[in-house]
């Protein structure tokens, strides 16, 4: 009995170029160990990307497992037509979008019953207010700085955020991001440009002064 096996001669471009594609092909053939290797390799960044998308660590880990589960369920139909990470983040984008939509619906209901409920994606002016509140009194250490950055990322629209995360943390090209998010490269270019502009504006006080958050806080106190 014989089985088909990819070889040097018939291996596709992606199979040759991307070790993750080769692992995924082993998963297709039934290798649990190959799948485990993929989970090990991608879990950290996947959870990080999802955490930025849904703003909740526990939910991010649950969603990451959902992403891996979908990858595994799709194994028998898997054909390498792109880098593995492109495919992985296409699924991630869909899973995160669904989750954000659901969460957004829940929060819309909350808004009716509880006026203090926040929108899933916070508008920039709210963000700006938060920032001014943070500056004089609360920004004291690295943790606070991290919070400022996280909030700045949260203030971006979901698509800007996703494009930014894939570009910044996954090092994807515009073409790969476009493929993952099912957009044109021109749209990706525009999304990233806007994301950069928004982040620059929100984080400008910490860039232009060249001072730490603590110093900014002290100056603010002295001025008042």
């Amino acid at each position: 009995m014989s089985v088909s096996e990819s070889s040097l001669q018939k291996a596709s471009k992606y199979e040759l170029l991307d070790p993750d594609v080769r692992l995924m092909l082993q998963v297709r053939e039934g290798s649990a160990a190959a799948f485990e290797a993929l989970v090990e390799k991608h879990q950290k960044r996947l959870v990080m990307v999802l955490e930025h998308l849904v703003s909740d660590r526990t939910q991010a880990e649950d969603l990451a497992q959902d992403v891996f589960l979908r990858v595994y369920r799709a194994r028998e139909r898997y054909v390498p037509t792109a880098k593995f990470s492109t495919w992985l983040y296409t699924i991630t984008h869909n899973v995160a979008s669904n989750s954000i939509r659901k969460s957004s619906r829940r929060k819309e209901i909350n808004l009716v019953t509880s006026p203090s409920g926040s929108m899933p994606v916070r508008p920039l002016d709210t963000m700006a207010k938060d920032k001014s509140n943070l500056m004089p009194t609360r920004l004291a250490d690295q943790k606070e700085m991290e919070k400022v950055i996280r909030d700045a990322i949260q203030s971006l629209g979901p698509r800007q955020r996703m494009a930014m995360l894939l570009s910044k943390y996954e090092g994807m090209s515009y073409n790969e991001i476009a493929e993952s998010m099912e957009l044109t490269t021109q749209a990706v270019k525009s999304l990233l440009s806007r994301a950069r502009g928004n982040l620059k504006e929100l984080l400008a006080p910490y860039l232009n002064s060249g001072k730490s958050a603590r110093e900014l806080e002290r100056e603010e106190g002295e001025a008042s």
Partner: protein
Amino acid sequence: MNSKPEQPESQSGEIEFSSFDELSAYLDGELDEKQTQEVENRLGSDSKYLAELQSLQKTWDLLDTLPVQEPGGSFTKTTMELIVGDAVNTAKNRRKRTLFLGRVAIMILLPVVFFATAYGVVRRLKSDPDRRLIENLSVIENFSKYEVVDCDLEFLERIRNIDFFQKPTVIVVNGSEMEVAYEDDIADSIPIDSVQRAEYVKALDVEKKISLKGKFEDFEVKSESDRKRYIDFDLELQARGNRQQLRSTLNGFYDWLTELELSERSGLQDLPQNERLAEIRAIRVRQAQNELGKKSLVNLPSKEDVPFLMGWCESIFQLKERQLRDRFPLVLEQAMRQKKIGSVPPTSVLLEKSRVENLNSIIGFLLREDRQFVEDLIFEGDALFGLYDILSLNARKQLDSRSEAEQRSRILDWVDAVNQSQQGTSLEDLKKFEMELSSKVRDRLQKMSSEKYRETLEWMYEESRKSQISSQSWWEQQIEKTLDPN
């Protein structure tokens, strides 16, 4: 603070929106050469544009200060459990669906046939004295291997991934498609259906029946928990889509383990699985390196690369076997004419020799006599790319620092070393060779110590193979000189 950050021109007052897009794309390295040049020209002359670029870059760099947390320690484990659970549920649902549809069909269409067949099956099984043997046929055939290998399937999968033990036996080229055939395993020929299995056992010849009976008795004396463990392992293995590769790995791994010193093997089995895998890798690498090291060749790749290099060479040798065998008689004839070694045999003899000769021997001969041909053959197509894919970063760096000609030469040296390491002489070959020697030389050999005898015989054998001729008198003279230099 600007409330419309998507229009940066209102913030800076000078940077128009389209330029902002270009700056962002410039930072991402996504502009073409012309656009890049335009941006750089402007950066050289427009200080505000430059400041904007620096500001964007700083913002982007600020994102690097965010720490990346590891997911919880059990993330991989729980994900794998989730997947296993899902696979089990899917299989159960499939089975349920199949069962449901099957039942409906049977209830509607074939109730009589069903009861008659079921009755027949039960009756035949009950009347068969070797029912337990038949039920557990697959595991009885294999449990002695499971016992030696002593691992779970996940561990076997991990070993399969290292790719040390799985040996495809034939590569079949069918048009442009390639298929790898694995060694047939006895487990593949055992029918799944119990009635057919009973027929299968009945049809075995006497010798096989006796052997099976012995295995069955060995199996029966195992503890109940061991028997259950082997049965579960066998069932799980049979259910895997890649069972053929896994069996091939299992067989290779079993063969390898049985060749180890007993103390080394039991030492391995005592280790936890993770450490065992690392130790297996270390032993295998050491063995492979020793095999190459024996040949005293220089410029060998690093230890870590050796097993992978050997695997790559084996694939290449198999892939190119036809071309190598076709070339061999031509070069052999040419060499014999040029070196005036005996009379050139007729074409039919040369062709027959190329058909039956050991492939490693042919490769060794061609590497000496027609290195260019082997080089061209090995480097045609994507083969080199495939090699780069399996080598460590260090080995790739070593190669990359050389010219293309040097790279080829180095790789060809490696191929030569691997080929030589595979030309090990089996005892059977040696005995056969010895029988072909003249009685005079045999007598001389018999008088040597056993160690010296083996060493000399191997040397003679190698020499005779290298010469690629069967001129007894010529190499007998050589051997005589070697044995008695005075």
